[in-house]
């Protein structure tokens, strides 16, 4: 059978999507557990440690418990939009994972099959990620509107305003990397960062862009200290107050998958993606062991960012809404534009 056979190719893509989906879901479950255990550690508690060894099965127990709950739809809600909102949230969250390379190009021994560890590689991968993220706002905004609940509506309004504001800073903070790489293809951006034992990583040339991206990404995923849309002290649970059972689970999962995807973007654009320093010299490019080390390195970097998220949640208090808006528009935006101007000037002068 020819390697270029379209049916074989699409079958392999479906297999790859399934593997990536299951991986993301498992990371999601691990993050939920890690969040509870790490937060408990920060606050001097034990956290859930009864289900399975050290509480490792707790996310699955929680999943079954939440699924068993009654699926409520409020009487005065806009029914269709109410059902549509969690679907938009989860679909846009999952759609973003297809462009991230999990590892280098792998050649299977004996079979001589060569394939890259990425589901889809295309010219505008970075723009695709930004577009999918920006569509994700609708999930939250429509959920808040359709519930016919004051808290939900306030949460949805806050979220829409916050995500529009921080999307700009997020996009602008990435332009420095694009200027350096000269491409929007994430796979090529990662390839360009390999070699020289990690000194080619974009974080070294774009430290300001990295910090800006990190702040904007936290705001974009509605996490502490930017979790105004679901501030429980003032808004009960924010936009998902009226959601229960599987629909609540979809929102909950979407938030964690969004965390994972922004961590993946930070890793691929600033921390060299799957590149592990010294791995190429010690193991040789193209071997299976090298690929395995690279994939593990990629996941280690993602888990570092996820840990950072949890750490921030255990440490920082919440912003006030006007502080949030001032910070986004009057600080992040001008600094991001400054970063672009400086980077463009340096790139022009050095002719890189």
């Amino acid at each position, binding site marked *: 059978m020819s390697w270029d056979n379209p049916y074989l190719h699409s079958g392999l893509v479906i297999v790859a999507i399934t593997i990536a989906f299951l991986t993301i879901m498992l990371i999601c479950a691990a993050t939920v557990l890690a969040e509870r255990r790490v937060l408990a550690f920060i606050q001097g508690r034990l956290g859930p440690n009864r289900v399975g060894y050290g509480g490792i099965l707790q996310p699955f127990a929680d999943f079954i418990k939440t699924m068993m709950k009654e699926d409520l739809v409020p009487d005065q809600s806009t029914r269709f*939009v109410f059902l549509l909102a969690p679907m938009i949230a989860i679909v846009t969250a999952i759609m973003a994972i297809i462009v991230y390379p999990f590892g280098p190009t792998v050649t299977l021994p004996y079979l001589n099959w060569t394939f890259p560890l990425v589901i889809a590689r295309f010219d*505008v991968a970075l723009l695709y990620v930004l577009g999918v993220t920006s569509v994700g706002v609708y999930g939250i*905004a429509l959920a808040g*509107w359709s519930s016919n609940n004051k808290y939900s509506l306030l949460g949805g309004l806050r979220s829409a305003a916050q995500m529009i504001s921080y999307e700009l800073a997020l996009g602008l903070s990435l332009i420095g990397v694009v200027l350096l790489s000269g491409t*929007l293809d994430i796979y090529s951006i990662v390839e360009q960062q390999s070699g020289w034992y990690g000194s080619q990583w974009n974080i070294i040339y774009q430290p300001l862009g990295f910090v800006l991206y990190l702040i904007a990404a936290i705001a974009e995923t509605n996490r502490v200290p930017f979790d105004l849309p679901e501030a429980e002290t003032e808004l009960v649970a924010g936009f998902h107050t009226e959601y229960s059972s599987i629909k609540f689970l979809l929102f909950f999962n979407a938030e964690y998958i969004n965390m994972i995807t922004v961590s993946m973007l930070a890793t691929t654009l600033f921390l060299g993606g799957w590149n592990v320093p010294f791995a190429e010299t010690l193991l040789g490019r193209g071997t299976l062991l090298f690929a395995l080390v690279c994939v593990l390195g990629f996941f280690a970097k993602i888990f570092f960012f996820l840990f950072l998220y949890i750490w921030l949640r255990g440490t920082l208090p919440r912003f006030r809404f006007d502080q949030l808006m001032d910070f986004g528009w009057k600080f992040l935006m001008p600094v991001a534009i400054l970063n672009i101007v400086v980077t463009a000037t340096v790139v022009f002068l050095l002719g890189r």
Partner: protein
Amino acid sequence: MSALLFILFAGLAIGCAVAVVAQRNPLYSAISLIGVFVALASIYVTLAAPFIAAVQIIVYAGAIMVLVIFVIKLLNVEHEEPRRQRLRFLVPTAIGLAAVLIAETAFILYSVQASGSRVRLPGPTSDVGLTQSIGVNLFTAYLLPFEVTSILLLMAIVGAMSLARQGNLLSPTARVVPGAQVLAMDIVKPRGFEDMTPVQTESTAEAAELLGVEFQSDPAKRE
């Protein structure tokens, strides 16, 4: 395969476009418009123009429509409001214009097929729609239109700023509360509870009667 995809996305686009006009609820119209944009972006991808598709999603579906939905939510347009009839003459006009458009398309199709010359279109592997070729063309061959558009956008920004600085742009139904938040009418007055006029009653029994619930005055009988 590509014909199948085209039929799928074109059908989606047309269906959503009809829904935009036909829906009475403005929010449903807005959601349908997002559907149109997404379907159009998918068609751009099949036409080997991924950059246009991505920009379409980011700018139209991701930014402009979020603002539209934000405004609809904030102003809370009543969807029971009856249609104004004074623009009725627009319906035959629209049908006439649509007929002209369809006739033009049919004429172009017919003339292309009649002339017999196969127009060579860039195939799905063309690099015309790629980011690099668009960027190079924007800054060389089409620099003047690009700069003129930039100035137009700048004027729009300055105009929006100067309008917003005059103040009093909030709708009379919106209320401002501490913390610089604008409350929609939905929060002040939820749907489904239209009659909010206070009623004064003399006794608990009277209040219970008004509310339509049973009232047991003797505490001993209460369960």
